[in-house]
């Protein structure tokens, strides 16, 4: 079967992903820039302000809010250390209590609170998050630089987690072998795969593990 040609920003079948976080991926970033084919100008540099909602009770659902929209992805599987995540739900603020009750809080895997309003603004939602000791909202600012290496979508990113700086690299594709080749080309074969949830939990002290470097 011919492999699907990836297009940055397009919806494709679920991708596998290698990602890591640390302080120094200078060599990988350089190699990424050299091996990359030209990519659309719109992905050369992207900046975003996001809020991740962390739950102490699970590592399988990844909830983030960007531009007033909520996006939850769920962990599907891991193959050879590469992770596959699928979209679970998308919502927009103000968001209905029904969606919070049936989709969002179940994804957090915490006790579902009583909802006394029909819908909630982002500010009201964040106030509810703040009240729950098992949940935490974390500010994440990203400056992402997009590349395409070995038909995998790659990026190098400067990320601020609650204002503190880390660097991230990633390679994602529907094809495992393409990611593995990219990891080899970028000399990150031995680097731990650390997803956003893991990285943020390590930085805010919920997981007692270091980043990759």
């Amino acid at each position, binding site marked *: 079967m011919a492999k699907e040609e990836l297009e940055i920003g397009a919806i494709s079948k679920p991708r596998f992903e290698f990602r890591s976080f640390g302080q120094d991926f200078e060599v990988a970033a350089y190699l990424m820039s050299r091996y990359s084919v030209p990519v659309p100008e719109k992905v050369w540099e992207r900046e975003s302000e996001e809020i991740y909602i962390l739950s102490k009770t699970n590592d399988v659902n990844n909830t983030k809010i960007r531009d007033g929209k909520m996006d939850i992805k769920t962990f599907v599987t891991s193959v050879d250390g590469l992770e596959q995540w699928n979209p679970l739900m998308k919502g927009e603020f103000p968001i209905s209590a029904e969606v919070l009750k049936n989709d969002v809080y179940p994804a957090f895997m915490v006790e579902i609170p009583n909802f006394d309003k029909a819908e909630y*603004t982002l500010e009201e939602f964040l106030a509810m998050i703040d009240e729950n000791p098992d949940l935490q909202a*974390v500010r994440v600012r990203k400056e992402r630089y997009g590349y395409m290496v070995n038909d995998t979508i790659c990026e190098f990113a400067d990320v601020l987690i609650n204002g*503190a700086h880390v660097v991230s690299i990633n390679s994602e594709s529907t094809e495992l072998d393409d990611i593995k080749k990219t990891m080899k080309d970028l000399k990150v074969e031995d680097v731990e795969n650390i997803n956003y949830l893991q990285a943020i939990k390590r930085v805010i002290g919920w997981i007692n593990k270091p980043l990759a470097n």
Partner: protein
Amino acid sequence: MTHTTPRYEFRVFGLDSVNVFIEALKLQGTAGRVRNIAEIYLMAVGNSDYNIKIRNKALDIKTLVRQENGLEQWNPTEVGVFPLAKEKIKNEIFPALGVECPALDRDVYTLKEFMQELILVDPDIKVALTEKVRYAYDFADCICEYAEVQVNGALLHTLAIESENPDLVYNAMAKLNIGIEVENVNYPKALKRVLGLKIDYDINKFF
């Protein structure tokens, strides 16, 4: 290092916002030694008057003496070097954390026992592991430094000005173009912000 007279301190944290002050200090100050230091900070939500850290198995507590016209005066106390007697843990460390002391089964705690049995298991206590590269400077008759600080692996820059004389601190701030609008942020406050213990950021930009 413990000193007898508490110093007044001004400190800022950030990245680009702090780098301009760091560059000014590099230009005008006299560089001293560079130190690589690993420290464990212990924090609790309710505690803002104590700065509790462990370096080379020695636990120090700095107590906030006063806040005055934008400066803070801290008084350092060396609690001791691990292993520590349970009385010190009960009577000095937990009161500073503002957290109820659990039952202490041992007479003496090693650092590992203290962390594993008393700190990491307490949901009210947060731990920040820091790796610092500190660059000391003499400047305007003040003790100054800038530092690259990794907080649980994430990087911040900081710059500090200290003196027993607050007027010297103000003078140094002026020479570095640090205006009165710049917030004085001490270590516990900065670490709490990274750990998300203090939700005081500007959320409005997300709406």
